[in-house]
């Protein structure tokens, strides 16, 4: 499948600097339609609004007020978004196995562990979107 660089991506991470890096990553891959949010509750409202177009959600796990898992559950329970690709970002290594299991139960599309280099996230996105091999694409 051909890469869709206008894919509407929703990025949720409470850490401003990490968010900035991730936006730069995504823009570096060539994406032009990235919406970044720091508050998962605001993100949830955005997700629940049917008129918003979302092709991929990338969310941090550990956030104040609401975890990425809660967000994932809400997405999966939403009739319009139940099949929306969702990539989870985690940072606490000791909790990894437990988290992955939980996220897998909620059909997370993929997960990635902080810190990661640009090509790692890119490969994950290409994989979950079913696009042709990321390494053969020019960003």
């Amino acid at each position, binding site marked *: 499948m051909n890469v869709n660089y206008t894919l509407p991506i929703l990025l949720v991470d*409470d*850490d401003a*600097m*990490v968010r900035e*890096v*991730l936006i*730069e*990553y995504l823009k*570096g891959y060539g994406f032009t339609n990235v919406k970044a949010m720091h508050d998962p509750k605001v993100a949830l409202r955005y997700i629940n609004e049917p008129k918003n177009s979302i092709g991929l959600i990338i969310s941090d796990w*550990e*956030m*104040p*007020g609401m*975890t990425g898992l809660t967000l994932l559950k809400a997405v999966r329970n939403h009739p319009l978004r139940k099949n929306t690709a969702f990539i989870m970002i*985690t*940072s*606490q*290594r*000791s909790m990894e196995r437990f988290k992955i299991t939980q996220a897998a139960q909620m059909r997370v599309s993929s997960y990635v*562990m*902080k*810190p*990661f*280099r*640009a090509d790692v996230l890119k490969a994950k996105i290409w994989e979950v979107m079913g696009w042709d091999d990321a390494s053969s694409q020019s960003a």
Partner: protein
Amino acid sequence: MKNIATAVQAKASQNSKSLTQKDFQPNHRILVVDDEKDIVQSYIDILDVSKISNVVPMRSSRSTSSAMTTTSDPEFELVVAKSYDEALAIVKRDIKQGKPFAMGFFDVLLGEGPDGFDLVKEIHAIDPHMYAVFVTAYNDRSVDSIQSFLGADKTNRWDYLNKPFSNGEILQKARNFTSLWNLNEEKKIQDSKLQEAQRRLVESEKLSSIAAVARGVSHEFGNLLMQIMGKADICLTENNPEKMKTGLEVILDATQRANEILEKFKDLSNPAQATREKSKIYAHQILDEVLVLMEHQIKTQNVKVSRIKTDKVLVEVNPTSLLQVLVNLTINSIHAMGSSGQIDFSVTDVGDMVEIRVRDYGPGIKEELIDKVIEPFFTTKGKQGTGLGLAICKEIIEVDHRGEFMISNHGVKGVEAILRLPKEAEKE
């Protein structure tokens, strides 16, 4: 019927045994030192048959060895010595084997040479815990002179009886002193166990607050490494000197911050290495560190932090201990409020002291418990709490820092911890 009665008795004796510490072995060993055969026999008769009914035949001249041991009676174990030298040898041997005597009956006149007082003085040099009862036919020595001979520190370790003694006197002295010996030893064991248990609890309390901080640090590190790795990666792929420069600045800031967090965490997790030395520091600087360490928990629990007042006051403290106290109070506040709420921190100059207040907006402490929360081992957190957090805080503030530590319900809502520390003069 008889069988039932026996069973009940056996059960009763089991119960009374279980009251004593499992690894405490009661000691019923008595040394009798007397060179007269008939007197020795009376001791054996009195102490040996005392617990069994009168119909039991006396077990008397069954041993020809000079040191006779009777072990069949569970109440006492009797060892007999006929001379000064023999008694001393037995005591030395048994101490080596870890079998001390609880008490001894000492004839004062032991033939030629040293007497019973000399013997007990010598024995106390080997085993200071053994009780001694002097048995004499002559009032040749006053109680005061015995006291000064044996030493004031041994006053409660000896007693005396005049010959001829009654059975009741011997039996009662034997029971008194063996049970006294056992009480003392048991208490010693319990005290050391208690100390050990307390030490462990203090350790585990420290560890649980460290674990809470560690989770936050680990999360924080994930984010910092993400910034470093991400920016480095972006710098590499983009051929833009301007962007590279800002990227490197972000990387430097992140490494700086990671290092700061690590330093603080190291101090907290290893207080033995962190010096107990005090240093002069502004009170609010400690609070700044606490908020760095607790940032993650504060954020994930959706807690709002409000620094109500921040006076600039110099204190002389051990920064690590004070950090531990404030981390502990902050964790308590977060626990008290559940998933959201607010914590107010203030640092106020109040004359010759500085006052640090940590206040939450939780449900507060029940009035009847307010005086108990600082007591060691009191906890409202069930099995999760050791009940030592606040006790340690109080110790650190009041003993180590000559300050004051108080916990009370805030007039409006929640709990307020108030700590006061002596102010240090600003350098001229």
